[in-house]
């Protein structure tokens, strides 16, 4: 039995008048890559926000490396987050800073490293995502794909053990999307980073997942390897992966 990195147990969350999560059960092994698929508005991003403690479950528990996230006080939560990286949908780069300052921010805040070494790590992370030489640009002057890559470099700055990706390829052209997919896969395989990605891009899901889980009606409706998901007979999963408007999932 591989070691458990992340576990959702009977997680419920209500936002406004809607129960978004209704008893989510999910276990992710250390070093594993799990992709959560599901329609827009099914609570995929909400699920990720529970892992980093941006949201707390109304019921149930989320544990990361054996520690229950909701039980941590603010200081412990901040230090736990240093072991995680999160790639936000729009990149969420700080637009008052340059790309280099964005990538170096966590290092400046959390490590006693001298400026020379911070600069070295920043260059290294930017090279990892293919953005060497763009250190002094402002986020506003980057394309969508470059923003995502810069944000990825920033998320990797502290060498996280767990990476969370919120729609890593949405809005990117197919070629840039493939670059991001390969990067995610490489990080997970080479550095053994546990990763959870949320997406509705099936190409991306097949590429980066060890297992794919489908979130539907607030629960994990189906879970399996990409092959299992591709060959499933479940009508909801079939409809989703084939992108059909006919089936049990109604258009919204």
């Amino acid at each position: 039995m591989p070691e458990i990195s992340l576990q959702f147990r009977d997680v419920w969350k209500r936002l406004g008048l809607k129960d978004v999560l209704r008893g989510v059960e999910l276990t992710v092994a250390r070093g594993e890559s799990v992709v959560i698929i599901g329609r827009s508005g099914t609570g995929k991003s909400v699920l990720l926000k529970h892992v980093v403690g941006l949201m707390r479950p109304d019921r149930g528990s989320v544990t990361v490396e054996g520690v229950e996230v909701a039980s941590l006080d603010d200081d412990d939560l901040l230090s736990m987050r240093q072991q995680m990286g999160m790639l936000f949908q729009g990149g969420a780069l700080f637009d008052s800073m340059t790309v280099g300052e964005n990538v170096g921010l966590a290092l400046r805040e959390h490590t006693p490293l001298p400026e020379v070494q911070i600069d070295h790590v920043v260059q290294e992370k930017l090279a990892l995502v293919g953005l060497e030489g763009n250190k002094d640009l402002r986020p506003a002057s980057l394309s969508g794909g470059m923003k995502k890559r810069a944000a990825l470099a920033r998320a990797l700055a502290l060498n996280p053990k767990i990476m969370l990706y919120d729609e890593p390829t949405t809005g990117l052209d197919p070629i840039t999307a493939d670059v991001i997919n390969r990067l995610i896969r490489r990080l997970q395989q080479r550095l053994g980073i546990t990763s959870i990605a949320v997406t509705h891009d099936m190409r991306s899901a097949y590429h980066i997942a060890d297992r794919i889980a489908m979130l539907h009606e607030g629960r994990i409706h189906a879970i399996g390897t990409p092959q299992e998901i591709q060959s499933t007979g479940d009508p909801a999963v079939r409809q989703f992966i084939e992108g059909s408007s006919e089936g049990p999932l109604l258009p919204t």
Partner: protein
Amino acid sequence: MNGTSTESIARRLPHAVLLRWLEDVGQVFLLVGSVLSEIPAALRKPPLLFQQMVAIGVDSMPLAVIVALFTGAVAAVQASYQFRDYVPMIYLGTVIGKSVVIELGPVLTALVVGGRVGASIAAELGTMRVTEQVDAMETMGISPVRYLVAPRFLAAALMLPVLTVFADVVAIFGGFLVATMSLDVSSHTFASGLRLYFHIRDVFSGLLKALFFGLIIATMGCHYGLKSEGGAEGVGIATTRAVVASCLLILIVDYLLASFLFRVLFA
């Protein structure tokens, strides 16, 4: 559509409005509490503080100075009109000096700076909130209160009194210019009037008020900015609310502080 309109009506019912208002008040107190606990950490990051002192203080200087100049000028015109035939003109300097230092300097500076700075803080933090930059910051283990709110809070509390000092001087100078150039008051008369009944405690009470006004402006800007939601529209709403709330609170707190200072402390 139906659900939305029912929801929007429900949001306007008196008890819902009252509840939201109470929620706001509670959140503001929680924010101020956490800012106070983060102040020592914020003081260890002078660059962030200086950056905000420039944005809030130095950059507001031209606006504050122009407003002050005309405030003093108007005060001179109005006072001389009221004094005509009844009060000797030596009191022109007295009345301008007192009203500027106690009331006009701190309050008008706070209102115009509140509009400028409150809006800019709410819009900046609001945009950061809706583009997930605030979430990203938290995810990186950096407290937004320490990194974003505390420097603005401190900078506003420090710079509003500084701006007020300049505004006081410029407003009195504006009054002096009008008095000597168009009201036939000699500079000696004006200056003697200014010195008459001058109390340093009046200046300090004005600066104390300015400090509170600075805290109000930063707190409202940060509070509404950080809780904005729903894209550009949400940021717009947050900005409006921050400015309206700052202006209202400045006037309310002005009354409370005036009552305390002049009817209790200096009575």
